């Protein structure tokens, strides 16, 4: 009897194959599709790069042009949404888009270039404007003065200040 009821079951259900790709397919609200970087919001903080398991995201500095490049290569992306978790500004978000097949390699790259700040002392670009502005809130007031110094110069300056303080100057 098993056979017959299976046959009748399948007749009563009818076709279940979807028309996809000829008809679109719905995905739920929180679907983890292609990540998209909002160029306006990204501050180039590198947290996403540190979190990304397969190194789909890389952030590197182009010192010659003085820009920081946030480079997302979808060919490596595993759609884990870790970048979305860690991004402090919500610049990177996973979209509902999942049809990524393409004929050109370029479609798989997203590149954000952020202008960098040059160090007041040594002239080396060391951080993006946006990141500096973002982090200025968290800095203690006495460090804000040294905002435009690169970490090395800043360290130098701090140690200078400290020696000065030790010398009894009462500057701080």
């Amino acid at each position, binding site marked *: 009897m098993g*056979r017959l009821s*299976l*046959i009748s079951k*399948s007749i009563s259900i009818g*076709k*279940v*194959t979807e028309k996809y790709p000829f008809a679109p397919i719905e995905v739920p609200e929180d679907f983890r599709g292609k990540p998209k970087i909002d160029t306006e919001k990204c501050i180039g903080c590198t947290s996403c790069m540190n979190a990304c398991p397969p190194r789909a995201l890389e952030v590197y500095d182009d010192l010659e042009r003085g820009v920081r490049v946030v480079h997302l290569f979808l060919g490596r992306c595993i759609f884990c949404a870790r970048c979305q978790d860690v991004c402090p500004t919500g610049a990177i978000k996973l979209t509902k888009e999942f049809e990524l097949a393409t004929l050109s390699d370029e479609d798989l790259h997203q590149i954000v270039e952020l202008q960098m700040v040059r160090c007041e002392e040594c002239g080396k670009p060391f951080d993006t404007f946006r990141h500096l502005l973002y982090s200025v809130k968290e800095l203690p007031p006495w460090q804000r003065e040294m905002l435009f110094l690169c970490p090395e110069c800043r360290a130098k300056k701090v140690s200078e200040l400290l020696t000065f303080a030790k010398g009894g100057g009462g500057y701080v």
Partner: protein
Amino acid sequence: MNFLVVINILFALIFAPLFDGFERKVKARLQNRQGPSIFQTWWDLIKLFKRPPVIPSDSIKRLYILAPYITFTAVLTAYLIVPTLLPQSLNFAGDFILVIYLISLATLIFSLGAFSSGNPYAQLGSNREVSLLMSEELVLAFVVGILALIGRSLSFEILFPLPLKVSSILGLALLFVVIYVSSARIPFDIPEAEPEIIEGPLIEYSGKHLALLEYSIYLKRFLLYSLFLNFILPKETTIRTGGFLLGLIVLSIVYSSLEAYYGRFRLDQAIKLMKKLSAVALVAWLIALMGW
């Protein structure tokens, strides 16, 4: 007369793959699928005919290449004798035996060709093919016996159509089963059994050789359908044509539904079943002998 036979053959050549496409569609629907278009089998064949064949290096080349052609011709020859769309055919005493002989020849040559390919899967498949053929042969022999007894002849001319009798119904029922078995459908597709021995005998064949073999399989199934229908349908042309087409469709649907909802037998299980069936056939033959 001869001209009409040619029409019959052409009809079979064109429609045999179409019916396979139709069966695929039916199966797909029974499996909740959309399924390919009914022309798909034709597209497949055309594509295969265009491809160059590859011949395995450790095969017995002549046998290997010749087998598909012989198989194909053997099946095609049978169409001279078994009428399809039109009731005309070449008939002579004992043509029933010849048809059976031709069908078995096709199977045997097919197995032989596969065996010569040197592939262990093909050899296993051929082994199974032949064992299955042997076991179904006994039933077939009884079926022929029954039908011949009813019509008191071995010529289709006299046998078609059968008179309405208990023994003819039994005989046809048995023929129905034998046709199912010899058209290598699940659960009797043991020689091919894709998950077990990867299409068995067909494994090494490619290009036009494969196309020819597949074509002969479709033609063989179609031939058996026609044979069956001829035993039922009256000879007047008008009703016959309609009835024939309708019968083909019904047979296709029934056979493919059965195929979709069965699991595969193991060879020994199938042989056991055939043995039981031969016993039934023997009884049916005795009934026919009594003239019922």
